[in-house]
């Protein structure tokens, strides 16, 4: 077709040009064919062009015979030129295609690298790497990492934990292949960075390594490799494996660092704990001991009133001790990591009613109002934790405000959250303390009629609320005195609500 067009152009141009110049449109056509369709079509176009040229433009016209010897020469040169042009153009085409594939791969690699750099855990590395790798290499990919003396295999594209101990899930690696990778990974793991990779018939095994040594192994299915049209695929796999190795290595280092940080934090907590134990626990204990001694040794001389007083002080101080120890236990529970506490559906009214009952004694000398909005939604949380938090806030309000003060408990819906507020009309909190009162062992400068606790209550509250996916903050009331503690909890979506007329 293209040759026909070229012939047409030549027909039109014939009167104005020498016969020799008429080959140019044909050559241009051949070149375009080569660029557009590659070598074979352009060679075909060359042959057609030569024949057409001979048929239409060389005398005798409309015959493939050639009368002039000059024209034989001319035709020969034309054929040669056509073939050369075909080859050159086709080569240029190949280069262009390769370059654009390279650019695509480079782009892919760049995005891959960025994604890996953003991953914060091994899970995330694998979750982002595997689907992208499969898409990029257009082949099934496995990542094999050493795992506690054995291997963990992560199948591409599936969010599936490798079966513990099972070794080769989904027939991804056969036993032999598994053993091959395992022995390679375990052989001299620190200095083996330049050890050559093992070879397996079904999988192309690409080592993942960093300057520190072997990190793992990437396996690409060989059967899919043949159809892969990526230039220089070995180098590409190497680069991908290196990127992965670096990401995994980075995660391992971060994990180590987190562990170290946690250990340091724990040490700090232990120190604070010891300080607290020696002071805060011994003070009430000393009172208990003194009162008990009084009861035992001065039984004959003390009046009944005095004895009663001693017994009561034992009771009060022992209760305080119990509270301290309870707080310490709760804190330990929090420190050892509280699981996600948003499993169950709870009614705020349950937690509030129990917290009000429990704080009734300490709030006996205060005025208390309760205002729960009608039809508050159920919350996602743990009622034990929520009750604990509400109780602590009420108890704090009682502790830090004078007799007769007003303590208000409110709960209302605010967009997609429920807010629970405990307000008092006491002296408020020093602005500098508003955030620090939630720190462990920090005691605000609010001095109340009773001695304050060990500075764990609000830290525990914050931990508990966080476990339920919420926040807790403190502020002072604008315009008038008093503190406000606000718990904000997200409203969960609850399907399947019962029909109350049933």
């Amino acid at each position, binding site marked *: 077709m293209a040759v026909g067009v070229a012939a047409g152009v030549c027909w039109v141009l014939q009167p104005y040009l020498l016969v020799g110049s008429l080959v140019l449109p044909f050559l241009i056509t051949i070149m375009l064919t080569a660029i557009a369709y590659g070598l074979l079509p352009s060679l075909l176009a060359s042959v057609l062009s030569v024949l057409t040229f001979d048929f239409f433009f060389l005398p005798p016209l409309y015959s493939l015979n050639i009368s002039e010897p000059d024209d034989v020469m001319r035709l020969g040169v034309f054929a040669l030129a056509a073939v050369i042009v075909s080859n050159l153009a086709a080569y240029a085409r190949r280069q262009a295609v390769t370059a654009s594939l390279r650019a695509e791969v480079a782009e892919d690699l760049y995005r891959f690298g960025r994604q890996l750099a953003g991953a914060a855990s091994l899970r995330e590395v694998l979750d982002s790497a595997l689907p992208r790798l499969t898409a990029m290499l257009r082949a099934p990919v496995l990542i094999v990492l050493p795992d506690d003396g054995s291997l963990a295999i992560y199948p591409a594209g599936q969010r599936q934990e490798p079966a513990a101990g099972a070794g080769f899930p989904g027939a991804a690696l056969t036993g032999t292949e598994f053993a091959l990778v395992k022995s390679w990974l375990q052989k001299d793991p620190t200095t083996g960075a330049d050890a050559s990779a093992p070879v397996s018939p079904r999988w192309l095994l690409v080592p993942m390594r960093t300057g520190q040594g072997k990190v793992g192994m990437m396996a690409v299915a060989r059967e899919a490799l043949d159809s892969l049209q990526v230039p220089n695929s070995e180098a590409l796999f190497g680069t991908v494996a290196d990127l992965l190795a670096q990401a995994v290595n980075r995660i391992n280092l971060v994990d180590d660092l987190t562990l170290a940080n946690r250990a340091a934090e724990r040490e700090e907590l232990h120190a604070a704990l010891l300080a607290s134990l020696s002071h805060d626990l011994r003070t009430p204990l000393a009172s208990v001991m003194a009162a008990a001694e009084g009861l035992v040794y001065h039984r004959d001389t003390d009046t009944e009133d005095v004895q009663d007083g001693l017994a009561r002080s034992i009771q009060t101080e022992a209760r305080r001790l119990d509270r301290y120890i309870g707080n310490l236990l709760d804190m330990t529970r929090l420190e050892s990591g509280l699981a996600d506490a948003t499993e169950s*559906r709870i009614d705020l009214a349950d937690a509030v*009613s129990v917290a009000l009952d429990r704080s009734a004694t300490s709030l006996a000398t205060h005025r208390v109002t309760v205002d729960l909005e009608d039809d508050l939604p159920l919350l996602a949380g743990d009622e034990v934790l929520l009750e604990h938090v509400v109780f602590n806030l009420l108890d704090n309000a009682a502790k830090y405000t004078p007799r007769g003060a007003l303590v208000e408990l409110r709960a209302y819906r605010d967009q997609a959250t429920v807010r629970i507020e405990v307000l008092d009309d006491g002296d408020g909190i020093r602005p500098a303390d508003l955030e620090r009162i939630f720190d462990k062992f920090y005691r605000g400068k609010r001095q109340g009629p009773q001695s304050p606790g060990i500075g764990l209550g609000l830290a525990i509250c914050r931990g508990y609320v966080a476990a339920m996916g919420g926040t807790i903050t403190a502020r002072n009331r604008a315009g008038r005195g008093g503190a406000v503690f606000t718990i904000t909890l997200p409203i969960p979506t609850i399907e399947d609500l019962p029909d109350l007329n049933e």
Partner: protein
Amino acid sequence: MIPDASPLKILVVDDEPAIVRFLRTGLSAQGYTVLAAGSGRAALEVLEREDVKLLILDLGLPDMDGLDIIIRLRATRSMMPIIVLSSRGEEKSKVEALELGADDYLVKPFGMDEMIARVRVAQRHQLMREGERPVFHVGDLAVDLVRRLVTVRGEQVPLSPRQYELLRLLVQHAGKVLTRDFILREVWHSDSNVQYLRIYIRALRQKIELHPERPYYILTEIGVGYRLRSPD
């Protein structure tokens, strides 16, 4: 205090002598005979030998899990009331003990008044098994179990069938703590949807409580379930 002429025998199983002494003093003053055992094995021996009417059981024993004693007792079809003592923060084992057939629980440290109240409820509950009274009264709440009528402060309260079932279950076990799973099984015949229970309890409170946010009749046992105030 006790209508029976022979004093009621209570077995206290706890390895802390201070707790045993405390319970012995307090319960004896109420006219009960108190036996004590410091280990699971000793407890089983006493149970074999003596005619024990009520068991107070600490879950953390030196030689065996307190839960095992509950299992053994209930396996012999004994209906002896069991009150479990647990330490703070053991919500799980508390619920487990109740599910296995314990009647009630107290968290250490507890006061004598609380213990005596629980003992009375457990005792009365056992007596009530034989002859249920047709009309239940507590405070201003009356539930007529024969005519299925509920009145509060003299006024009849309309309840949906399911709401009545829930209230009736609470009334039948008045004063006793019922775990959420138990209620769900009894009223909904499945223990899946805890939000059903929450919503129904809220609806019941709206209907029978004067201050639903500070309930008087239907009390929350945090982390465990619900309890209907026992008639006094």
